[in-house]
Every structure is written in structure tokens, then in C-alpha cells.
């Protein structure tokens, strides 16, 4: 087999893995800490993609589009948690599956109303659009390398947040014993909303990154959701 094809496929796999990591990080954070099965995580991914697409077209810059879409997705996640999901933490997983499946239908329809039924393409900036020459004469799309780079940076950032910061300590404390954390002065509800927002932002980021390759389209979240569940089951929750 040609070494070029091998390396290219290896990098493609790595790039898909990074995308799945971004998506699954939020899913497993929310499941591990709040014990919530959130099927609507894929819808947040979709909303992130559409938001970034619109902002990119308005601002005429993909990078600026992402920079402004990230806080919006964070906010969207927090609002979603506050009005819809907060009420179902205490329910069992089957109820949560049903309720969040309902959210998928609702959000798909909402996106259809706002953006219409067609997909939305995002043009890449020239800087990321071409290919890059790697050693051994391998040519690889710059944008896919960019996705890998973002994934690595987010992984380092997440590790730092959870392992080294005060907020990370509180997240771990709240995950292991929420009653005790509460009794020591931690506003667990607010903390959970923040964690959910963070997970939503990462899912949104994954959606934004894939949109230039696959377009932002309705139902895009359901495909990745299944794969992401496989990832977190194999990887451990």
C-alpha cells in the first residue's frame, strides 16, 4: 500500500477522533457529573454549526464567526439547562432519554423555522483552504490539520481546568458528593449550569469545525451522537 494513503487515512482518523473528542467531552461531563443522559447534545452541535455559519457570512470571516459563536453556544446551553433540563435531573435515565429526544425534534424544527430546510455552507478563509506539504512528500488539507490542532489545544485546556483550577476542584467535589459540596457553600445548581454550558460550547465548537467540510444541516447531530456514545462507553464514562 502507498505510504501516502496510509498517512492520510491515519490523519483523517485522527481528525475525526478530535471531533468526536470535542463532542463526547461535553456528553461525558454532563453524564458523569450530573447523571443526565442528554440525547439533545447533538442538537447543540447543530445549533453551533448554524450559528457559526450565519456569523461567518455576516462578518465575512470564519475565525471571527467561531469566536462570536462560541459564547452564544455557551449561553444557549445554559438557557437550555435552566429552562428544560434542570427539571429532569431527578428522573431516571429512561425519562431523560424521552425528554431529550423530544428536545431533538423541537430543536430540529426550530432550526428549520429559523434557517430553512437547506444546509448552510461555510467558506473557508484562504489561509486554511489549501493543502500543506508534510515530510515524505505527503500533501494534506490544512483545514483538517487545523481541526487536529484545535482538538489538542482543547484537551490541554480541559485537563488544566479540571485538574489545576479551583473550579475544577469544585466540579470534582460536586461530582463525588453533591450534598456535602453544597453543605460547604457550593451552589451546585449554578455549578451544574456552568458545566452544562461548557459542554454545550465544546459540542458547538465541534459542529462549527465540521460545517466547512459537511455543511451545517438539520439532523447532523444525530449521526455523531451515536458514534460519541460508542466512544464514551468504550472510553469509560
Amino acid at each position, binding site marked *: 500500500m502507498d505510504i501516502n494513503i496510509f498517512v492520510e487515512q491515519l490523519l483523517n482518523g485522527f481528525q475525526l477522533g478530535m471531533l468526536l473528542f470535542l463532542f463526547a467531552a461535553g456528553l461525558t461531563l454532563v453524564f458523569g457529573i450530573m447523571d443526565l443522559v442528554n440525547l439533545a447534545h447533538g442538537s447543540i452541535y447543530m445549533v453551533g454549526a448554524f450559528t457559526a455559519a450565519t456569523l461567518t457570512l455576516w462578518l465575512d470571516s470564519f475565525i471571527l464567526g467561531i469566536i462570536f459563536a462560541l459564547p452564544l453556544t455557551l449561553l444557549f446551553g445554559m438557557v437550555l439547562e435552566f429552562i428544560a433540563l434542570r427539571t429532569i435531573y431527578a428522573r431516571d435515565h429512561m425519562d431523560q432519554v424521552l425528554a431529550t429526544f423530544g428536545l431533538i425534534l423541537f430543536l430540529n424544527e426550530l432550526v428549520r423555522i429559523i434557517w430553512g430546510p437547506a444546509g448552510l455552507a461555510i467558506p473557508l478563509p484562504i489561509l486554511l483552504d489549501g493543502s500543506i506539504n508534510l515530510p515524505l512528500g505527503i500533501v494534506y488539507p490544512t483545514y483538517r490539520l487545523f481541526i487536529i490542532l484545535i482538538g489538542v489545544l482543547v484537551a490541554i485546556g480541559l485537563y488544566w481546568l479540571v485538574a489545576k483550577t479551583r473550579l475544577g476542584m*469544585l466540579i470534582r467535589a460536586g461530582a463525588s458528593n453533591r450534598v456535602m459540596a453544597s453543605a460547604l457553600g457550593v451552589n451546585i445548581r449554578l455549578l451544574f449550569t456552568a458545566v452544562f454550558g461548557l459542554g454545550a460550547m465544546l459540542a458547538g465548537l465541534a459542529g462549527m469545525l465540521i460545517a466547512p467540510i459537511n455543511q451545517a444541516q438539520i439532523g447532523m447531530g444525530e449521526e455523531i451522537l451515536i458514534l460519541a456514545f460508542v466512544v464514551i462507553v468504550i472510553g469509560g464514562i
Partner: protein
Amino acid sequence: MLSIQSVEAAYGDSQVLYGMTLEISAGEFVTLLGRNGMGKTTTVRTIMGILSIVAGNIKFEEKIISNLPSFRVAKYGIGLVPEGRQIFPNLTVRENLVATAVPANNKGDGWSMERVIDLFPVLKDRLGSMGNQLSGGEQQMLAIGRALMTNPKLLILDEATEGLAPMVRQEIWKCLQRLKKESLALLVIDKNVDILSQIADRHYIIEKGRVVWQGTSMELRANEQLKQNYLGV
């Protein structure tokens, strides 16, 4: 400082507190005594807002705290050392201490990591260990240190010496006496009546969710009958 008035509370259908009443003044060392299942821990849970009350009220420094969320009660200045210690197992000792710490709001004389280590020197070498790697005694000291780091005005200790070796127990008693000297108010639930009747100020004995006796340490020591009626095994 803390005032519990005619509080009733229940777990589902089974009522546990029937008109529980208790007062603690600033700087006072008060105990809550009684056999198992009489409502001591339940009283603590209602103070902390972990369990809702159905009647009565709880005030802390003249503010009503009944049925507030736990984190608000904690923010008002009540520190909890819970039954079973409940150290965060997945945090290091250092993280257990600093994660929920609150700096003192009065002239700088508050609790810090240095002061907690000064109080419990054993913890010094364990700062990097995970919470679940500690012995029972170390966990208990950590639980007390963790609560002190929130700089409370009232510290509640629920069965703080249960299952500990006599030597460690001694250390906990010494620590409580030192805290009392620093005029921290204490509410202590414990089975060791003899030592408590030496070091505490006042005592409440509860049976079936209400107070059946209250008095000073001197009165408790003088009344052998009490122990037989309400505290014996």
C-alpha cells in the same frame, strides 16, 4: 446565635422531629446527646437545609434560615463536619481544604491552610495524598480542617470521634477545647458523655425527636439517672 424553634421534620411518611427546640449563643460549646435514631443527625440536616422542615423555624443570627438551600446556610457561617466524614475521595488533601475555602471577612484572623496544619500537624505530610488514602483519624481531622477553612461562626460536628482510636479521640477533644478558646460556637453530637460533660458548656438530651432534658455540664455530671434513662446502651 442559632435558634431552633419547635421544628418538625420527616423522611417521607415517617416523622422524626416532633417540636425540636435548641439555642446556641455565640462562642458557646453545646452538645446534642441521645440514643441512636432519636433525631440528632436529622436535626443537623434540617439546620443545614439538607432536609426540609414542615413546621417551626430555624434562625441564625436573627435571620431565618429554615428551608434555605444548603449552600446559603453555609455562606451565613455554619460549618459542617458530617457523620461519616464525607471527605471528597477524588480530591487531594490540599484540594479538600482549599476547594470550598472562604477567606475570613473580619480583620485577618481567619483560618488558613497554615493554621489548619498547625492544628493537625499529621496532615502536613499528606497534603498530596488523595482523600480516600487517609486513615479514619486523618480523614476526621481533614473534615474538621475543611469546615474551618470556610471560616464559620458555628461549627457542627456529627459523631466526630466515632470509630477512632483513643489517642486520636484525645486529639479531637483537645482541638475542640482550642476552638472554644477562640470563641467559635460549637454544636457537638457524640456518645462520649463523660468527657463532654467536662469540656462543654451546655447539653441537650433528645428522645424521639424532642428535647427531654437540658442543662449545664455541672447539672449533667450530678444527675446519674439521666445517663441510665436516656443515654445508656
